[in-house]
């Protein structure tokens, strides 16, 4: 797992800087999506999470879920256009999982992209991730990640 100023980035994931989410290739044409460690740091402790239902079609950049942190209600945006195949009920019942375990227990939805090749072009993976996030964090003035709810990799 790559690390940058206490921010963790598992090696096997794709990252969308634009939406600050990760995507994990499940090997069957579907991808799990969740918030990055940087995104959960910027948001702070999450108190509510409402997921779009399984079966719903979403467009790239549109909302997969709505979350609330400290009186701020905002969307988690999709890195793909496609259909939501599955949602994680634990993300809705225990929203702090998105802070505590953003890459494992706190995954948000599983989606089947309909324009995978096109959408994948805007994602980064591997060695590129740290380079991109270094610039992103400098731009956003994020000095490091905060694991306000603890951290379970």
């Amino acid at each position, binding site marked *: 797992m790559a690390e940058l100023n206490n921010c963790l980035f598992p090696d096997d994931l794709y990252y969308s800087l634009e939406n600050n989410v990760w995507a994990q290739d499940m090997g069957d044409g579907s991808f799990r999506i969740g918030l990055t460690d940087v995104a959960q*740091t*910027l*948001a*702070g402790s999450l*108190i*509510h999470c*409402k997921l779009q239902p399984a079966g719903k079609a979403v467009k790239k950049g549109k909302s997969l879920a*709505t979350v*609330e*942190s*400290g*009186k*701020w*209600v*905002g*969307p988690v945006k999709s890195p793909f256009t496609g259909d939501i195949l599955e949602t994680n009920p634990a993300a809705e*019942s225990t929203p702090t999982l998105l802070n505590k375990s953003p890459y494992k227990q706190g995954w948000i939805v599983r989606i089947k992209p309909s324009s995978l090749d096109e959408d994948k072009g805007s994602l980064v993976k591997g060695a590129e991730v740290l380079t991109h996030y270094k610039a992103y964090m400098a731009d*956003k*003035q*994020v000095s490091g990640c905060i694991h306000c*709810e*603890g951290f379970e990799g």
Partner: protein
Amino acid sequence: MKARLLDMGTLKPVRSQSVFHAVTSVMEPDSDPVISLIRPSGTYVSVGYFQETEKEVDLEFCGHNHIPVFRRQVGGGAVLLDGGQLFFHVCVPVARAREFGLPDRLQDRFAYLAAPAIAAYRALGVEAAFRPINDIQVRGKKIGGTGVGEINNGLVFAGSMMLDFDTRLMARVLKVPNEKMRDKITETLDGYMTTLTRELGAPPEMKSVAEALISAFESHFGLELVPSALTPLEMEAMEEWDATLQSPDWLHLHRLKENPVREVKISARVRLLEAAHKAQGGLIRASMRVVDDTIEDLLLTGDFPVSPLSGLDTLARHFLGAQLDPRELSRRMDAALADPSFELVGVARQDFVELFGRMAPNPG
């Protein structure tokens, strides 16, 4: 930066909500920011996006008294809104947040966004200050809350200048487990909230409040505010939001898991908690006021035998001034139960452990 100023005057309740939802929802990434000022023509209740309406609001009372209830796509809790408040909404495209000066970390954003309202209060002669996460306070008393919602490409910061506030009606519109808690809410609102009228001794002119606010928005955000009207697209969206905000599906959008503790948050510092526990001897109910995480007031009631009758009040006094922390509550409980001046029948230490455990859960 140029921004549009929508000085909308007085609008009917639903419009006082639909305008900012509409303006925010149709923003394009390169749209100019919009600041709107609105005063509602009537009284209504606004519930936070993530609240379960029927658990928070006494819908029967509101229905009988013609008080509409709307859900907003903005965070926070249920509030009573009326003509004694001047609403402001700062609508900014998410893509221009940086250009607008908005910090990226959420906890920093509220302080930045609330600064003009604080400056406006000060210009009116009231020493307001920011209190994280999102309160504006005067000597520890809340003078209006704020919240943020991101809708499509826009974000809206919503707040109000509090000229006057009906604390009794605020307590009445909330759904509470018993009338004692309602009395506690009124008492706590009176003690921990304030208004421009209370601070200044007389209500200020609405016009001077609006002018102070506009001037503060211009200077704090470095904006050139251009008086404007709704665009045709915004008007169309406003009519759609009128319908959405009044629809039962939207009002009852969420069903949340059962919470055995009823909590009413008065301000960043102050909250009221109410919980009950069934013991062998009967039901024990606790209502507490927590200020800065310290129990300031505790009312214990029950239908089990207590001798003398004032025994529960004596027991409750042992907890005053305690931190809302399971270990401290456990220590206080040992001291309370060793007090020889009263006797409880059919209620054991474990019952209080369970009751207080719900109100002060172990972290993690």
